[in-house]
């Protein structure tokens, strides 16, 4: 039996979970700072770091209490080592080191994106080889998992991340931060779409580019303003969403076929986007591809997913020393586990 106490503070959620054998979530506490950062129109790193210090031990205490376990039952301590905001990561890392040191238990520095991918293992079983489509505020990636714990990056965004583009477009359309969900809702309600470009890049590329689309949206918005026309907010939102979703879905499906994987895993904060979920689900059904999507609470940043990913390293016995520090550019591929057997 392995009970991992997991801590995640890479951005603006302070989260602590206890996960058994990388699978069973005994507790998963998330303290969101979203209300605080709304006033600034985005996440302010210094404010995020201050908030993490204020809540970290309380979150650990509540996670332990709700799990029904005691600290003596904890087998290892996991923490997001990167990527993320370096000052925010640091609070979780110091807390995790301190718990690990005080309990004399192993420490497992964990990759944030490995966490998002392995969130899928909390409610289903990942079958390999698998392909993950990671979509969040900081990431837009296609990751190939040839076996458990092995990550190969086959495509990523060359400029903005999907979530970032959503928030910027939302701002242009007059919505407060974080605006992604407004765009999603509006797009679903719209009766028609303003036609916007798709960034396919080179024919064989699995990379993404969203800054051109974002600029196109801004152009349309400004033109309408200058001509004194109807803002057509809903139609623009739908046009933007259709463009983003079409490219994400097409590239993911092409990669699924090219690498002959057995499952497609959707994950990351933008995986809560209804337009993306619906289109990808329909397409996978049509193509006969098995699609996993974590429940909402495991899509946005949470510590349970860190506990799920850390379990990979528990099994291979790859522990971190007490000298780890926050690494904003931690490599996912290098975080792959040693192969067993």
């Amino acid at each position, binding site marked *: 039996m392995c009970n991992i106490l997991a801590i995640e503070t890479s951005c603006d959620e302070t989260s602590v979970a206890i996960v058994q054998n990388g699978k069973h979530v005994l507790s998963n506490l998330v303290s969101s700072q979203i209300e605080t950062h709304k006033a600034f129109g985005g996440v302010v790193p210094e404010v995020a770091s201050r908030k993490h*210090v204020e809540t*970290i031990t309380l979150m*650990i205490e509540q996670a332990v209490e709700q799990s029904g376990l005691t600290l003596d039952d904890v087998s290892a301590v996991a923490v997001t080592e990167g990527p993320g905001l370096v000052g925010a990561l*640091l609070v979780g890392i110091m807390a995790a*080191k301190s718990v690990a040191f005080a309990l004399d238990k192993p420490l497992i520095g964990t990759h944030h994106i490995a966490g998002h991918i392995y969130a899928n293992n909390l409610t289903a079983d990942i079958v390999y080889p698998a392909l993950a489509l990671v979509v969040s505020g900081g990431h837009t990636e296609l990751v190939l998992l040839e076996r458990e714990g092995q990550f190969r990056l086959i495509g990523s965004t060359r400029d903005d991340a999907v979530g970032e583009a959503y928030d910027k477009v939302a701002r242009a359309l007059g919505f407060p931060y974080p605006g992604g969900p407004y765009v999603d809702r509006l797009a679903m309600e719209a009766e028609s779409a303003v036609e916007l470009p798709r960034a396919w890049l080179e024919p064989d590329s699995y990379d993404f580019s969203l800054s051109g689309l974002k600029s196109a949206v801004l152009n349309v918005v400004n033109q309408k303003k200058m001509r004194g026309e109807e803002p057509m907010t809903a139609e623009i939102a739908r046009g933007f969403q259709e463009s983003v979703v079409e490219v994400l879905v097409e590239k993911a499906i092409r990669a699924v076929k090219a690498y002959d994987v057995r499952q497609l895993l959707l994950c990351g904060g933008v995986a809560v986007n209804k337009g993306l979920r619906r289109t990808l689900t329909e397409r996978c059904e049509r193509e006969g591809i098995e699609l996993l999507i974590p429940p909402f609470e495991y899509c946005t940043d949470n510590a349970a997913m860190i506990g799920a990913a850390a379990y990979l390293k528990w099994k291979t016995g790859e522990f971190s020393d*007490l000298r780890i*520090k926050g690494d904003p550019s931690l490599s996912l591929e290098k975080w792959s586990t040693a192969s067993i057997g």
Partner: protein
Amino acid sequence: MSEMNEQPRKRFLVLDTSTAAQVVAVMEGQKVLAAESSNADRNHSVGLLDSIARMLEAASVSRRELDGIAVGVGPGSYTGIRIAVTTAKTLAWTLQLPVAGFSSLAALALSGYLQATGNGEKKDANTLINTSASGADELSNQATADANQQQTEQSVSAATTQSWIVPLMDARRGQVYTGLFTTEGEGVPHCVEADRIVLMDDWVDQLIERYRVLAEQERPANVYIVGDTALHEQRVAKLVELAGDRVQLLACSLEAEDAGSVGAAALLSGQSEPAHTLLPNYTQLSEAEANLLRHS
């Protein structure tokens, strides 16, 4: 002596990472069992736990044998103070120990005072505090002797043995983290003006005003300005004009033994708080919060 031995000695872990120095001390009461101050080039997150493990081992104290944790809560580097505070509060919560925050400036004030009075070399806190008393006497005697020689109005027989200590941590753009501490030579310096961030020019004006309004016999025998003095030497000139050679500048860093003394004193006096509410003392809002407040 035998009475002392019957008292269970309390063992404390003391941390401070508010400055360039990464400071860890293991104390038994006011006695330093092990202390380490390393210049970690503002990379305290990497080495702090290693240093804690090393100091506990050197002191032959296991983590389960600790009776309390004390931590410098700042002011200082924002990231720096978060490192020690997060570590202290999480260790305290996990090990179920009392935790106390202390002013990092108080520790710097003590380091500066002991070095200025020639007692900085003594690494045993017991010795250090006992001898510092006589050190201060010597100094005030010296001040009196000087006064008799010079017969200047400003230094005629300082009746007080009190010293002022003004610790400085540079906070960029002409600002300092500072406060005003007094000491009669013994124990932890007493805070009379709370930790703050202030323009050094304004701070010097405030100190001058405070000094000026005192009757001669109430004026401090010495004014020690300690810490990051190099960048602010020019700004102190006005104070030197007024108080003459009572003013001494000493560039120094925060020493582990002195943080140990200040931290142990806090815990020995019963000061502690729940781990959950222990927080850094930034002394100011973050820039984003300040801007928001200004524009609303």
